[in-house]
């Protein structure tokens, strides 16, 4: 695999991992208490 492709793959992995972390925090903050958009099923 070309170095350029490998670096791009690493970047995609980082974006997915960090994006999931942000998503989990947002879901956590909006799934508790008196929040209107409740995702308790998650």
């Amino acid at each position, binding site marked *: *695999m*070309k170095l350029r*492709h490998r670096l*791009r*793959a*690493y970047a*995609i*992995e*980082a974006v*997915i*991992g*960090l*994006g*999931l*972390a*942000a998503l*989990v*925090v947002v879901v*956590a*903050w*909006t*799934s*508790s*208490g*008196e*929040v*209107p958009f409740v995702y308790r099923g998650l």
Partner: protein
Amino acid sequence: VIDRLLALFERVHFSPSWASLARIAAWFVIGVLAIDLLAPDKRPDLTADRYNAAAPDPWVRSITAPRGDPRGFTPTTNDDVFKIAWVGGSELQSIGNGVYTFLPIEVRKQIPQVDGRPVSIDMYFVSGMRLADEYAAVLAAIDNDVDAIVISLNPVWALNDLAVHGWDNLDPAVARDLLTRPGAWPVAASLLGPGDLLWGVASAADVIDDRYQWGVRIHDNVSELSLIDDPAPEPSGADPEPLSELDQIRAMTIPVEFWGRYAPTVDPTEPLAVRQAALFERSAQSSPINDAILDLIGDAVSATDIPTIVYTAAVNDEVLADPAIATHVEDIERRLGEHAAAFDADNVRFDPTTIGRRAPGMVFNDVLHVGELGPLAEVMAGDLCDLFVDSGLTPECEPP
């Protein structure tokens, strides 16, 4: 969806592998930790708590977060104080004659110091506390490394299977605590879910643990925002239509509201006295889940060396004087007494008899809720002083 994602990845020359999955997981952990570092820690404001505002005391306070907050309890510092954890529900309150106070506040006046340290009482006070909530509070108190524990068993609810579990926001912490208590796993499987365990473990990160407070803040900021123009309906002047029976059930928030109305033991149209008798009768019957949780509470405190008193809250003298109900109360006391083995430890005092029998002259607002404590605080203070002396401590006991 997965096929499409893989096709998309292929187009940008990205071929996912197990190694890339591991790296994504690593980035995920790094991301959560980074947000945890960047977001400031939140802490519930105990002085804003409505019970603390109604009965302010520098040495005694409720440490219970609002219903829905998974942090559950916010203990105060143990530094340079003798910390007592007092676990109980609404039976701890005394409301009457313009006075609002708590039993622990009045007891603390009679035991200001132990071993030269000022007594500080954290009340694990849960309004509408049911037995599973009580177990959660006891586990939290043990985790918080307190110097003594006082547990109030509510005779109406301790053995009543109509409402075992009221505050499900306490569940994540319980799920995490029970990982190391395999004896409690059958009860955990009955009351908790996998999500509770996941949230409980994830709460190690403050940014997850504080999610209720963040959620309330977000709610305050966005609740007025809407893309939908939805004006309030004009008042028609006519009485609103009464809710259907199904809608009334839908509006219920905790199981006891349902069972209070549809309890199989009594017709809801019967007079109050008859329904109260039925409530006590229900508590006097066998309930395996309550029995199991009560034993777990006993096992938990017996496994520590923390001086502990487990007492049965007082019931109205009029209840005890009514032969139709008194017999059920005696059955409840007998059934509680059958759990003595679980509380059999040098550091634990367990009394299945309602403490009101030793504190005549109390005034009640109903069968259980106290209007005037009468001699109860003195009786409790005496019991605590005896326990502390027997535990090798030096309490400063001041009679009223």
